């Protein structure tokens, strides 16, 4: 009898739990739909208003060319291209190609940024000496750096996409280095003193104390870098003459914007989704790795 009773209680609790989950899931789904509907209304509302009053902001005229209907942009994704595939298929292939460049670039940039932070946290002299140059590196526009990287690396027989990955890494390493440095320094000073009083090695302090303390900072940086690496990859494809990625698609559609604006908007949509998926991958990794992270700024 008691066994049965407890089982009944358990199933009851389980059903309450799952009902709770369903309800929360539903409300989140509704929220997502609401936000999407709101954005759609904003877009179409502005377009309708602009066309109705013949709005002209500077040189920006509102018409089907400057601001196509959202539904025609989405519909474009499912129309075929000249070679027969749907535009969506073509763009997803391009997105995969760009994703490869961005992912390799992100990995390189994150590793380099992490190493720089570890070196800098151990030497105040290097920190003061090197940090200004690291900051300066980011004030040089990527558009100026990209062609040089392509010329240098291309001349060494490396494949074009690798040059693009290096450009993506250039945008990635900076936020990681700066944030990780801050994170490594954020270790509790009392814990630091305690470990030092036990004559713990720098290595032990680094891995047992500093690195765990830096993880939330690290992932905050990863989130910025993940999207930056996509931007770097797309920009880098232009000087590298790569036609297979999103950058190539954007360049082509840019040329033909006057006659078919939906294509460019559709490509931008896919590029944004790629950025979003990179971001969410980082969020996912954070949830798996930082089990006890204090705050989540998702």
């Amino acid at each position, binding site marked *: 009898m008691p066994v049965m009773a407890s089982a009944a209680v358990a199933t009851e609790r389980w059903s309450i739990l799952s009902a709770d989950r369903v309800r929360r899931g539903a409300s989140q789904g509704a929220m997502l739909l609401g936000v999407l509907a709101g954005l759609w209304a904003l877009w179409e509302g502005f377009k309708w208003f602009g066309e109705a009053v013949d709005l002209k902001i500077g040189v920006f005229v509102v018409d089907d060319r400057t601001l196509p209907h959202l539904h025609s942009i989405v519909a474009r994704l499912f129309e075929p291209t*000249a070679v027969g595939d749907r535009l969506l298929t073509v763009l997803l292939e391009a997105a995969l190609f760009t994703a490869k460049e961005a992912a390799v670039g992100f990995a390189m940039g994150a590793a380099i940024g992490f190493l720089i932070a570890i070196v800098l946290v151990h030497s105040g002299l290097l920190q003061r000496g090197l940090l200004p140059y690291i900051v300066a590196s980011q004030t040089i526009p990527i558009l100026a750096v990209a062609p040089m990287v392509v*010329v240098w690396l291309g001349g060494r027989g490396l494949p074009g996409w690798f040059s693009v990955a290096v450009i993506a890494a250039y945008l990635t390493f900076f936020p990681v280095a700066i944030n990780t440095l801050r994170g490594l320094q954020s270790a509790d000073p009392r814990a630091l003193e305690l470990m030092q009083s036990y004559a713990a090695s720098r290595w032990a302090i680094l891995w047992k104390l500093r690195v765990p303390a830096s993880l939330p900072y690290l992932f905050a940086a990863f989130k910025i870098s993940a999207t930056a690496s996509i931007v770097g990859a797309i920009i880098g494809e232009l*000087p*590298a003459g790569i036609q*297979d990625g999103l950058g*190539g698609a954007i360049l082509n559609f840019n040329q*033909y914007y*006057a006659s078919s604006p939906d294509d460019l908007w559709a490509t931008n949509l896919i590029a944004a989704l790629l950025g979003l*998926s990179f971001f969410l991958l980082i969020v996912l990794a954070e*949830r798996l790795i930082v089990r006890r992270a204090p705050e989540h700024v998702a």
Partner: protein
Amino acid sequence: MKRSRFLWPAGLTVALLLALAACGGDDGGSDGSGGGGGDTTASADPDKVTVQLKWVTQAQFAGYYAAQEQGYFEDENLDVTIKPGGPDIVPEQVVLGGQAEFGLNWLDNTLATRDQGGEIINIAQVYTRSGMTEVTWKDTGIDDVKKLAGKKVGVWLGGNEHKLFAALTKNGLDPQKDVKIVAQPFDMNLFLNREVDSAAAMTYNELAQVLEAKNPDTGELYTLDELNVFKMSDLGTGALEDGVFVRSDWIQDEGNQDIAKRFLKATFKGWIYCRDNPSDCVDYVLAEGSVLKKGHQAWQMNEVNALIWPAPLGIGVMDPESWEVTKQIAVDFGIVKNEPSDDETFRTDLAEAAMQELMDEDVDVHGEDWQPEEVEVTEGGE
């Protein structure tokens, strides 16, 4: 509890993307394997060379893609990599840097590079006439270059403006003072939105971009009747465009001369194929550039053929008269500081040798009978 808030949308999106990626990947497996398949004949290993195009893959370069697809490069025992260009790619730099043996660019760019000490030489002038135009709306009444005085004149800067400047000067207008030059991007939106009074347009590309666009007021496509088209070739300022160049020291070598001759022969054959089979060539180009539009490329193929054919001296051989025009513009507009020497700027022997071999094979290298097609303009270039 808190965990699931972020986990499920994240997991869902990742799953969705993986699923989409899997769908997208189905038919993408064929690329990336590259050359080396099935061409291991008894003959010596093919010579590996690279050609750097001036711009992205499009029918402007159809002859090279046709030579690849039709196996003409293979016939000449060449293994050719075709490198598309882009906004930040300077073919001269790529060739001088040794990343490509052959480069394509407008002849005046080749002159400018030479003047700055870059030792390159034109070995074939594929386009026999200029495709550059300046267009105006007919309703503005600007039906003569002289009437551009005081107007906003759009043109691509950075080396592409010289022909227009020459045309303005020839008509008594100082490009710096008498008109307002507007830097034009790679699209025609400034012109379509009437933010400039005139715009530069290549017959084979931007002109079609205008015709493929809808007039938002009428809902109809724009037509040639609504435009005035000033062709640089009619104005006598048609400096030559797409030609093939190589490094001057590279071509000293006799072995390389042989490679160059075979390369030219194969590409000429490719262009001749595109003259006789334009729709095949459009398909070759579309297969390389999956986002291109068929209608637009068909227009481009036809207009590009019109720049090559008829070729009175035979395809690829520099026409002395057009060379003089190009040289004069280069000198007058400061593209070069020193007057270029003819012998060091171009040589026609390789193109002539390649052409001779084709003539021995009874191939028509002049295209005297070629007639342009009527290509129907499609909305959005589809």
